[in-house]
């Protein structure tokens, strides 16, 4: 090589972008976690939900108010006294492999999802058959009217996403799909995917957006960037530094204590995109140890100050959290006042001690699984444990990592055989928008989520809510549901937190909702 050409190539070389960043102004996004699974039916992982919103579509989507709206369908017709729903697919829907989206693909996708989703029993109890009448028409034959059907079809964790029949009918729902073929506005690029490092998506040119304005996961999903790249940056400080330096464009979930630093950077905007956020909760074990006693659980609920928990987790900016909360998301129609005194009127330490005495608590040990590797959980459970100690509870606080908790929480053993009493968790707040999809609140004993609460009052209120004829009746049932929950305490709510996202100033058009979506986003 000649000296001059060597110098020229050496001068240009630093400007070369890595392969991941090839293309015209890719939007570089840092997701909250590594994308490990590509199957939103197989896993409830939040990062997979966000991935699925890009590449897959559902028959119905949720708008910013979390109401279901037609997405893949033009709409539906309800006949036969509410027992026959006919849904017509939009014209021009195409899979990413170039084949047209057919109704039978949707039937196969729904059948696969129903084998996996916790809401399946509710649907199976009402649905006799789902049929493809022709290429674009889906018919639901019901055993009784089911006005909430579209709420199930627009849920996102796990999501009833549509995929071609050749995949949906052949891949066991307990195994992950390995081929990603959706019909959403972005195509997944498998060649540019390395789990733990990066993933890339290209605009799907054959996607025809709806004409309505976009509202979260509904309306027209108009894409203005050719390519979106996800870059996994596990270290929060490094991710914030990369945004400040302009190496990435958008952080989904910057660590709360780094937000002030990002706010001071002239090139960065911070703000709330996830307007629902997460419900922080503690899950007591209802079948083993002192927490099996409902009186003890009520005393624990009374001992914990939700505001202190939220300040520890999110700081003192009240726009990023809400507390105290009951068992519904504040601001939603379901957010009843029934029983809210239990969390609003704080009891003194002596009063809580008396509650424990009355419940027959004799200083028995509680095993608290405390995950130190989860920033938010670590913060609020530290406060909660301190509050429980102050009222005289005997806490065996076991510091561990989240992976260990995931392994230990299925244990139904007594405490002396490795069982547990309490662990923290976070549930997407939309799950608490109504009784319908609130998995941690289900109180159907052995079939319930880890902790296995058993309260027929909650289950009966839920069943009646699903079949209720009017909103007024639902409001009454929500009050019954919440009063029962304050009595049996399936979970201990610790507040609702809505962390800020951060993005470069040249990125505009980001939509609000309960997950990051990339339609509407523009990069100057």
């Amino acid at each position, binding site marked *: 090589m000649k000296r001059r050409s060597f110098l020229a190539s050496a001068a240009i070389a630093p400007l070369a972008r890595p392969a991941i960043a090839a293309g015209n102004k890719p939007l570089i996004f840092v997701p909250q976690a590594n994308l490990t699974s590509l199957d939103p039916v*197989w896993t409830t992982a939040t990062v997979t939900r966000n991935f699925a919103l890009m590449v897959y579509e559902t028959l119905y989507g949720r708008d910013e108010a979390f109401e279901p709206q037609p997405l893949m369908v033009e709409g539906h017709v309800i006949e036969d006294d509410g027992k026959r729903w006919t849904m017509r697919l939009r014209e021009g829907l195409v899979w990413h492999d170039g084949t047209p989206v057919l109704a039978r693909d949707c039937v196969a996708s729904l059948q696969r999802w129903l084998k996996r989703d916790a809401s399946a029993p509710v649907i199976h109890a009402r649905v006799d058959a789902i049929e493809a009448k022709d290429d674009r028409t889906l018919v639901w034959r019901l055993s009784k009217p089911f006005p909430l059907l579209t709420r199930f079809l627009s849920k996102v964790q796990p999501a009833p996403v549509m995929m071609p029949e050749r995949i949906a009918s052949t891949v066991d729902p*307990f195994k992950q799909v390995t081929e990603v073929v959706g019909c959403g506005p972005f195509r997944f690029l498998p060649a540019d995917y390395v*789990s733990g490092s990066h993933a890339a998506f290209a605009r799907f040119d054959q996607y025809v957006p709806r004409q309505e304005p976009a509202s979260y996961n509904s309306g027209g999903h108009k894409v203005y960037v050719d390519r979106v790249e996800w870059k996994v940056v596990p270290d929060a400080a490094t991710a914030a*530094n990369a945004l400040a330096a302009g190496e990435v464009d958008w952080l989904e979930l910057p660590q709360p204590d780094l937000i002030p630093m990002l706010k001071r950077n002239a090139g960065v905007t911070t703000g709330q995109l996830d307007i629902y956020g997460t419900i922080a909760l503690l899950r007591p074990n209802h079948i083993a140890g002192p927490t099996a006693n409902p009186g003890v659980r009520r005393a624990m609920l009374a001992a914990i100050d939700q505001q202190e928990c939220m300040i520890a987790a999110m700081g003192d900016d009240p726009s990023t959290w809400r507390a105290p909360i009951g068992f519904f998301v504040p601001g939603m129609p379901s957010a009843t006042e029934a029983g809210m005194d239990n969390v609003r009127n704080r009891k003194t330490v002596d009063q809580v001690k008396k509650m424990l005495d009355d419940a027959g608590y004799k200083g028995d040990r509680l095993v608290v699984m405390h995950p130190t590797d989860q920033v938010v959980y670590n913060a609020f459970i530290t406060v909660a444990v301190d509050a429980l100690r102050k009222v005289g509870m005997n806490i065996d606080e076991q510091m561990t990592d989240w*992976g260990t908790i995931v392994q230990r929480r299925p244990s139904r053993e007594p405490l002396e055989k490795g069982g547990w009493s309490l662990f923290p968790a976070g549930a997407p707040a939309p799950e608490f928008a109504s009784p319908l999809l609130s998995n941690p609140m289900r109180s159907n004993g052995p079939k319930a989520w880890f902790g296995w609460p058993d309260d027929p009052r909650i289950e009966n209120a839920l069943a009646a809510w699903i079949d209720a004829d009017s909103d007024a009746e639902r409001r009454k049932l929500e009050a019954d549901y919440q009063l029962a929950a304050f009595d049996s305490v399936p979970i201990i709510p610790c507040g609702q937190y809505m962390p800020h996202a951060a993005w470069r100033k040249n990125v505009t058009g980001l939509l609000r909702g309960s997950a990051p979506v990339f339609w509407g986003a523009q990069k100057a």
Partner: protein
Amino acid sequence: MLAYATRRVLATIPVILIVALFVFSLLYIAPGDPAAIIAGDQATPDDVERIRASLGLDRPFVIRFVDWLWSVLQGDLGNSIFTNLPVSHMIQQRIEPTLSLMALTLTLSLSFAIPMGVIAAWKHGTWIDRLVMMTAVFGFSTPVFVIGYLLAFVFALKLDWLPVQGFTSISHGLLPFLRNLILPAVALGLVYMALIARITRATMLDVLSQDYVRTAKAKGVGQRGILFLHALKNAAVPIVTIVGIGFAALIGGAVVTESVFAIPGLGRLTVDAILRRDYPVIQGVVLLFSCVYVVVNLIVDLLYTLFDPRIRY
């Protein structure tokens, strides 16, 4: 020499077998049920049982170990629980950044540490010696992640010379490759450099007090010749030993460095797999690292005979 080398190579086989047994046992020693992890939160006990049977977890331990070992010998490390990808493929995707980081770290460390140690010994008791030792103490006592953040703050955020994070393959050009890797390599290499510099200095001091060095001086051999031709070669055995032993520290440090600088290497793959309890990946990576460590020590053993032909075990 050949007999010695053969003996050393054969000696590694039982070591690797023991490592393999330990690695395989990880899945069974650790609490929890891989089938339950795969099945997810909403699976019924029947679903979990079905997955357990499909994974062969209901078969006797010895049979599973032999089957696994046979698969490993054929290059099949199983599939990840979470990504469903072959572990060997995941390792292949991640090996370049880690190898690059280690190679650059090793190159930088040896290039600076050995001359530093030699010069410190030569200038024993002077300010140069004290400066080298102070640098070594700083390298020892400062955690890798602190050095990493400090370097990123100064050279990436304040001076804007280098990127904060990421990795660029060497196939995209040497300069982009070095721009991304230089800070992580310095952060990771500092402790390694300190270790080698201190050992080099101590060994050189010992060697420089030997009679043959005095004889060489009396014969009129120059300072450079004494230091680098006579003394350093005789001081090489402990230095090579510490380079080999330090390799383990390098592997451990790579885990932290890759996280701080968002380098998608094997270290991060290991941490992610441990946090998620992705046992096939943990098994694969631990087995790989163990084999690499065994091979590095084998090379060290073989190098001994090169530097000191008297060595025969």
